[in-house]
């Protein structure tokens, strides 16, 4: 046996022994490679870019922590932080609550239930631009249906989209509406997973509707609640498309009232060509998401029932 043959047969035995693993790696290769190239590499690159003054059109210079210092002195960043906070901490809890109510309503055996289930999912798969356009009409000061309702109830028109105090609320409402269907589907699946006998047992034991809900339903779907809340938070903190499209000028206005963190990153990077600072903002956003997810993950031990 020559040396080559020995090595070759060695490889062959190794391959034979790890056959199944190799097949597994082959099948996950496309996913992993895409992840490595487009996610992991880009993420690591942004860390590097955040220490430079890269303006896209010129080679970058290393500037140390200057971008991070700027972060703390930047009034627009703090404004964006507050806006993102309102957008998220109002939008997500309200969205989760409404979705749960709707899911329970849609879990009934009534006629045409499929139609309603589809209807609530439509916004999720609709283009944000189209959704924003429709809602801009709804919110319009003079011609909007919302103000028409307000006026017919004796109120005065609110200039939803141009008032710095209402525009973010309007955007939050749209984002809740858009994502509702996704949350409802998850809850619906969880609700349908609840064994009938548990509910029957609760009824026989004399549990009222409210008790059934808090003692049986909520604990059993708590993993779904956790999942929907975490993904909801991550999605809302990254909120961009609705605020971008609900302004004709795409300016995050009026007067920065709809400038979210994600919007500010876009503006810095692609409008102002300050990639270094944009990367710094992105890392700040990443840390915020990490923190929120970490807190929620820790809280799951207290509130989430029986992880499978």
């Amino acid at each position, binding site marked *: 046996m020559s040396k080559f043959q020995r090595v070759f047969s060695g490889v062959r035995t190794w391959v034979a022994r790890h056959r199944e693993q190799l097949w597994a790696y082959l099948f996950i*290769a496309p996913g992993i490679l895409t992840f490595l190239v487009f996610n992991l590499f880009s993420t690591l690159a942004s860390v590097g870019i955040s220490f430079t003054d890269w303006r896209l*059109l010129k080679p970058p210079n290393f500037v140390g922590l200057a971008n991070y210092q700027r972060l703390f002195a930047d009034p627009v960043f703090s404004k964006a932080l507050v806006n993102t906070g309102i957008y998220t901490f109002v939008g997500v809890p309200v969205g989760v609550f409404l979705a749960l109510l709707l899911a329970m309503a849609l879990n009934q055996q009534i006629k045409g239930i499929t139609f309603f289930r589809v209807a609530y999912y439509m916004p999720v798969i609709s283009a944000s631009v189209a959704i924003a356009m429709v809602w801009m009409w709804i919110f319009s000061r003079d011609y909007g249906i919302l103000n028409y309702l307000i006026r017919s109830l004796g109120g005065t028109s609110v200039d939803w989209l141009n008032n*710095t105090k209402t525009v973010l609320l309007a955007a939050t409402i749209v984002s809740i509406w858009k994502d509702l269907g996704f949350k409802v589907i998850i809850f619906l699946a969880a609700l349908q997973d609840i064994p009938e006998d548990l509910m029957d047992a609760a009824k026989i034991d004399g549990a009222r509707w409210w008790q059934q809900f808090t003692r049986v339903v909520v604990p059993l779907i708590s993993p779904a609640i956790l999942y929907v809340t975490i993904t909801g938070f991550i999605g809302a903190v990254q909120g961009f498309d609705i605020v971008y499209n609900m302004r*004709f000028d795409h*300016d995050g206005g*009026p007067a920065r009232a709809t400038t979210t963190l994600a919007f500010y990153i876009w503006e810095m990077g*692609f409008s102002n060509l300050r990639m270094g600072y944009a990367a710094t903002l992105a890392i700040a956003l990443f840390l915020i998401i990490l923190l929120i997810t970490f807190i929620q993950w820790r809280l799951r031990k207290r509130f989430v029932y029986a992880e499978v």
Partner: protein
Amino acid sequence: MKQRNRYILLFAVLLALLALSACGASPEEAEKQEPEAVETSADVSSISEEIKESEEADEGAEESEQETEEPEAEGSVWDFEAEPVEISVMSFFASDNLEVEQGVVDAFEGAYPNIKVSYENISFSDYFTVVTTLAAGNDLPDVLAMNFEEEARYADLGVLEDLTPFIEKENFNLDKYYASTVRMHQHSGIQAGLPATFSIVINFYNKTMFDEAGIPYPTEDWTWDDLVDAAQKMTQDVDGDGIIDQFGYVVGWWPNFVYQNEGTILNEEGRCGLTSPEAIEGLQLMVDLTLDPEQKIAPDRAELSASGDWDRFMAGGVGILPNGTWAITPFKENIEDSFEWDVMPFISFNKQATFMFGNAYSMTSTSKQKEAAWEFIKFATGEEGSRIRQAGEYETSPVKAVGAKDFIESTNGVPEHAEYFLDATEYAILPVAHPLWGEIHGIIWPELELALLGEQGVEEAMTAACDGVDTLLEENGY
């Protein structure tokens, strides 16, 4: 045996995957790596050497010689006998009618058979995203269409080649362009492009609405008071539902209100000048025309967000609209016969000042075929290229011989007084073209918007804006 084959296959697939992910070259890149392309780039250096040699041999004589042979190539030093080269050109001109700029490219290829142009047109809304991405990937074309505001930034960042040496080398005559259009493309001490089009803002007006309100058509002698009187008569709640649905006027771009009152955005020291009494007074008028019930002749921010100024004008809801040359074609197509319209001079409340905008063809500093790129720029901005573009009704030609005559002809009598656009070159001014203009505007506008919404006073707004702008300028060493 069968199994081993399978592993060989598996290995091959993995390798192919790796190759795909590692060098995800775009088709264009792949093309460039082909041997023929390498040969052409080698040819360029020999061509430029040849040009140098021939220049040394017979300076001056060549120019006249070529003019007789190739009348299209005016003042050209291009060697028509040389091996073909390829240049890439990217443009946003006339994106809604692709044949227009393609016609310019075809004409160039006809006149210069040994320069092949790989041409791409991208709509303006995506154009600078694409260009920036290409610049970041060091893959810019040889020639870029530029609007003068972005040009300022690109020139500052060193992306654009200074055309002065090319102009001087062959004594290229810049007098054929309107001088202001040439000046418009000088940034950061370089001639960053040659003018391809320009446009000017004057007033469009709805003749039918004037008739209905019983107001005689505006004349060249109109003053600001005449305009306000007419606009007040036209500002009405026509259907009586309590909402004003017809406006006499629309406030245009905010810097206009500053310059009309002899204010400046950036003062002589290069700092924010918006806190000056002139600037504040001008902007206060802008606010009053939309918000003060006594003076209201124009839609406010909310009314404009319900329906924009273009839509309102095209729907017959605006009497007088300040807007640019670019609006002529869309207005013709959308208004059709629903009402009569024309243009009138821009009317200012203090100093006659309107804005001139413009586009250029620029050469990228990374271009490997600068001589050929220069020939393209000269041709596409010159008389012949300009004439094709003008016939396609894309803005106004900065070439005097074309702009003055063909522009008026291309409008076919609508608007009737198209010459007012050309007259406005006399009093038009260039907007600020600072490399940081986008960011400067991003600081001023939110503050001004609060004033336009009535949420803060103009002076307060401008004080806050100037603080931000001055900090930005200082931090960036301006």
